[in-house]
């Protein structure tokens, strides 16, 4: 019995990380109807930037985060304003091919500069600390921090969307870019700001990923698929839904892995297919 409780708990905690990956994807799809195929590779890119900060400049992982997040934000803004804004149209072909191209470029540049070796970000012993819970159940401190960050960021995004000027611009351009432009919204800037936030979050997510587990340049696509599944399971257009989607994906993966190590990821995929078949709008769609 305890082993299943433990599986669910570990699943919930890893789900927080998936939610961190997924928020930006959800944000970009919500506002621009665009799926960034390079999203997973951006996670890995940020993990490598974090590695560079900790190894080359001797920063702690959280100090590295303080440096990488603004860089990620900048990358996101420039990428959208300079490249991706040219691809926005009703036909998804252009944005998909362009972000796919970027994904291949990022992956191969990382391979060229960091080789195919697996790496990890040193977190100063944090990765081995845990909090004892009831019975012989224990939760790792790092997973708890990651999950806590996911909850805080969900609240922050919800606030940003609901109660700020830029949030209102987000919602307006999402509903009708033409009308929003007539009301004085600068769509190009709004889109760039949205992507900046989406990639900025990956500055946090990527470093957490690198602290939690080993990573290599070709790990991006798997992270993209997890993030995508979290968005679809939770339902598009709601950040709490995305968090819940990440948690559900995490739980099913953890339970699957306890049944048979080969089936963990697969059971997560199966959940995604079942949700699509029976609740195509996701489990927690935005009610509007």
């Amino acid at each position, binding site marked *: 019995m305890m082993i299943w409780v433990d599986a669910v708990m570990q699943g919930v905690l890893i789900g927080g990380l998936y939610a961190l990956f997924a928020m930006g994807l959800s944000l970009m*799809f919500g506002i621009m*109807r*665009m*799926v960034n*195929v390079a999203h997973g590779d951006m996670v890995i890119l940020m993990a490598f930037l974090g590695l560079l900060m900790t190894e080359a400049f001797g920063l702690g992982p959280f100090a590295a985060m303080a440096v990488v997040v603004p860089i990620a934000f900048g990358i996101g803004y420039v990428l959208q304003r300079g*490249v991706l804004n*040219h*691809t926005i149209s*009703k*036909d*998804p*072909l*252009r*944005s*998909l*091919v*362009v972000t*796919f*191209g*970027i*994904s*291949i*470029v990022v*992956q*191969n*540049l990382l*391979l*060229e500069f960091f080789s195919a070796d697996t790496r990890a970000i040193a977190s100063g012993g944090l990765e081995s600390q845990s909090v004892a819970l009831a019975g012989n159940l224990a939760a790792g401190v790092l997973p708890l921090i990651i999950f806590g960050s996911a909850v805080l960021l969900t609240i922050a995004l919800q606030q940003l969307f609901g109660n700020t000027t830029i949030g209102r611009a987000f919602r307006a351009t999402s509903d009708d870019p033409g009308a929003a432009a007539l009301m004085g919204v600068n769509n190009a800037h709004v889109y760039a700001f949205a992507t900046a936030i989406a990639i900025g979050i990956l500055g946090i997510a990527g470093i957490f990923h690198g602290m939690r587990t080993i990573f290599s340049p070709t790990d991006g*696509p798997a992270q*993209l*698929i997890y993030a*995508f*599944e979290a968005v*679809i399971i939770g339902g598009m257009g709601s950040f709490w839904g995305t968090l819940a989607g990440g948690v559900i994906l995490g739980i099913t993966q953890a339970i699957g892995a306890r049944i048979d190590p*080969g*089936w963990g*990821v*697969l059971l997560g*995929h*199966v959940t*995604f*297919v079942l949700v*699509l*078949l029976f609740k*195509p709008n996701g489990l927690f769609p935005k009610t509007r």
Partner: protein
Amino acid sequence: MNAHVAPQAAAAGSPPKSSFSVERSTRLGTATMVFFAVSLGFSVSMPFWADASHLRLLTELACYFVMAQMWNLLAGYGGLVSIGQQAYIGIGGYALIVFANMLGINPFFSVLLCGFVAALLAMPISQVVFRLPGAAFAIGTWAVAEILRLVVANTTALGGGSGVSLVALKEFERSTRESVTFWISISASYASVLFVYLLLRSRFGLALTAIRDAEVASQSQGIDVKRTKFLVYLISAFGFGISGGLYFLSNLRISPDAAFGVSWSPLIIFMVIIGGVGTIEGPLLGAVLFFLLSKVFEDYGTWYLTALGLIAVIVTIWFPQGLWGFVAKRFDLHLFPVQRRLRLLRGPSGKP
């Protein structure tokens, strides 16, 4: 390139009926067909005089022709942008293993069956991925390919993660094997081009181009959009199944990563995009170009792929018509005329 449809001109009133004609074929199109037939004859004779290593390379190129043509039909004409067609390459490859190795069916005949298996499995898969809107469809198809990869990797009967060899080919002599494989791949590539050409010239093709240009408008004109897209998806799966079977027929060994790996997608997509999406000529040109480049730059692995990714980005944003699109527009060249073109004839007044 939009389909040019005639009735508007007649409705506008001024030109009398005789002053325009709808052109469906060009002299160049006929010439293409002649070249097509001659080159087919030439290719068929190749196993009798060409080097075995060249045959192998051409077999690979022929697989790319089919894949590029099928992805173009799906994305360029059907508007269904998929990053997961490797699902059907893998299904085709593993179907070949099941038919030839396990059931003892002639491996060359099995290739055809691979296409049917792929199309059959595409039916339930489409029920899942068609629920995803626009760009999300692309990632959904990719997730499906991942699922298949994991299922196969966990199935010991299919060799598990390390894969399996096509031992059924042992009973054939090497030269027979290579010639027959080559003939099948040549027929498959010519058939795929011819099929897409005839399909696009048919009523179905007209519906398809109409959907591509304006989905809502074509629905209001009575086109069954959902059914049309479903059929295109099945046809594409069939083509990918055949090419997957063929590829592993010539490769002799299959593994889940090679069969269902996502590295197929950038190859196929970049071929079509760089060649020119939404034309028949573009994917062919793209496949040849890509094939030559990959053989020349084989040793520069990561830098080559980086450059390829960058080219795909640049072409998509600044030259969305691709290489062939540029040629076609600049020189008004249509090797495979699929559109109906309105030609204004000189009226009695001398003005068009």
